[in-house]
């Protein structure tokens, strides 16, 4: 049933809008602009565990310390005129540490990592602006993102749309995006595989969201991404990858509210497959518990497992056309778990969160060589949000 935009009831819109639409792009969640502007900032610390002597050659203080990253984020979302909103997201990252350069064989025959030596320093700034138009049965958004770091530049654009069925029970969504990336590897720390290269990333996505009951909602999505250009890691000594990659993703999500527990169950699953022979399963589960009207606790757990790329070997096969000893292309399983806590104080909301991420080849459902470069990390964050009402 079509409604006159000028007759919209804000209270009814609040009830009916935000749960209905599948975010084609993160941030799109309503068929009406946000009632109030909101702003937030967050500081996060990302720290990888030091690599152990058992897994690395040339073990010194400067090479055992892996990446340590400080991240500051800013988010602003504001209604504009009657039917528009604008969102601005900014992120600054400051990173340092050593990373695996290549894998060699020890005297005992075990693979060991040779780290990059001197600590790598880098900074990244990302700015993303999204404008969104809302109409009676959906919305459409255009997003532009620019990311710049010492050795890498990315310019991306995305367009998305979402449309409700007449009864509002189903929402159909779609999105397309393009990214133009360029890398000029920093010279000096290690020899690089190129001095200047570029790649293009094309992506399309379609999804459907369906209300299952008064307390539950589900969504499904399919996406395809095509990467074209220099996909080799420029800083890895033994790394040569195809210049194309075709990726498919099928995903599903479920949200259910439990009134007696004042809690919502979040379950998300993703299946990933590509033409490098990588496959993966990802399962995210979270329990959002409103301990009181002002305090919310969210424990979460995530499981991830991947199949190794067809050209991955711990001791890279350099006589082959493609080869890599990058631990990120090996078979492994990963568990992460954490807790997020937030407290509302009038128009403010303060949040803290912590996450532990651990990997092991034996935790995966796909078998393969265990890479000595697998990484574990901690992440901590503190955030502040304000609603202008």
């Amino acid at each position, binding site marked *: 049933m079509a409604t006159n935009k000028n007759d919209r009831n804000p209270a009814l819109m609040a009830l009916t809008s935000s749960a209905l639409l599948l975010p084609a792009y993160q941030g799109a969640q309503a068929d009406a602009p946000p009632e109030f502007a909101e702003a937030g900032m967050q500081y*996060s610390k990302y720290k990888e565990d030091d690599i152990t002597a058992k897994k690395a050659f040339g073990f010194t203080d400067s090479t055992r310390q892996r990446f340590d990253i400080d991240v500051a984020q800013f988010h602003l979302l504001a209604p504009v005129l009657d039917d528009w909103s604008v969102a601005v997201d900014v992120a600054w990252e400051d990173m340092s540490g050593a990373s695996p350069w290549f894998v060699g064989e020890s005297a005992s025959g075990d693979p060991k990592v040779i780290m990059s030596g001197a600590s790598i320093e880098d900074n990244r700034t990302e700015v993303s602006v999204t404008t969104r138009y809302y109409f009676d049965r959906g919305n459409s958004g255009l997003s532009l993102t620019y990311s710049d770091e010492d*050795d890498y530049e990315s310019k991306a654009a995305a367009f998305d749309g979402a449309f409700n069925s007449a009864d509002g029970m189903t929402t159909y969504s779609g999105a397309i995006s393009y990214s133009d990336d360029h890398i000029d590897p920093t010279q000096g720390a290690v020899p690089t595989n190129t001095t200047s290269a570029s790649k293009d990333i094309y992506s399309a996505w379609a999804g459907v969201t369906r209300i299952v009951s008064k307390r539950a909602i589900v969504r499904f999505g399919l996406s395809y991404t095509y990467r074209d250009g220099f996909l080799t890691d420029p800083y890895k000594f033994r790394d040569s990858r195809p210049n194309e990659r075709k990726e498919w993703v099928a995903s599903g999500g479920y949200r259910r509210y439990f009134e007696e527990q004042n809690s919502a169950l979040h379950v998300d699953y993703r299946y990933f497959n590509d033409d490098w022979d990588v496959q993966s399963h990802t399962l995210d589960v979270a329990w959002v518990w409103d301990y009181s009207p002002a305090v919310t606790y969210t424990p979460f757990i995530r499981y991830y497992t991947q199949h190794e790329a067809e050209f991955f070997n711990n001791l890279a096969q350099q006589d082959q056309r493609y080869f890599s000893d990058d631990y990120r292309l090996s078979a492994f399983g990963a568990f992460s778990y954490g807790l997020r806590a937030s407290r509302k104080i009038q128009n403010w909301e303060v949040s803290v969160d912590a996450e532990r991420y651990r990997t092991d080849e034996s935790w995966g459902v796909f078998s393969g060589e265990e890479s000595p470069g697998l990484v574990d990390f901690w992440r901590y964050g503190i955030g502040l949000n304000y609603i202008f009402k």
Partner: protein
Amino acid sequence: MTVKTAVAGLVLVLLCGCETVQPWERGLLAKKDMQWTPNIMDARLRSQIYASKEASSGGAGAAGGGCGCN
């Protein structure tokens, strides 16, 4: 094939087996706790970190821009 069949079956079951929920009955569904992405900054950071440490990415919409982290 098994995975695809299971996913297709699940989609059909869930899409067909729903009760009609009137707009005024959707209060619980509209709560912030029920959003797909309750905290946008957290979601952006987590997805970027995972994508930089794993061989998979995407699934939550169109792919965004790249970074030198992967």
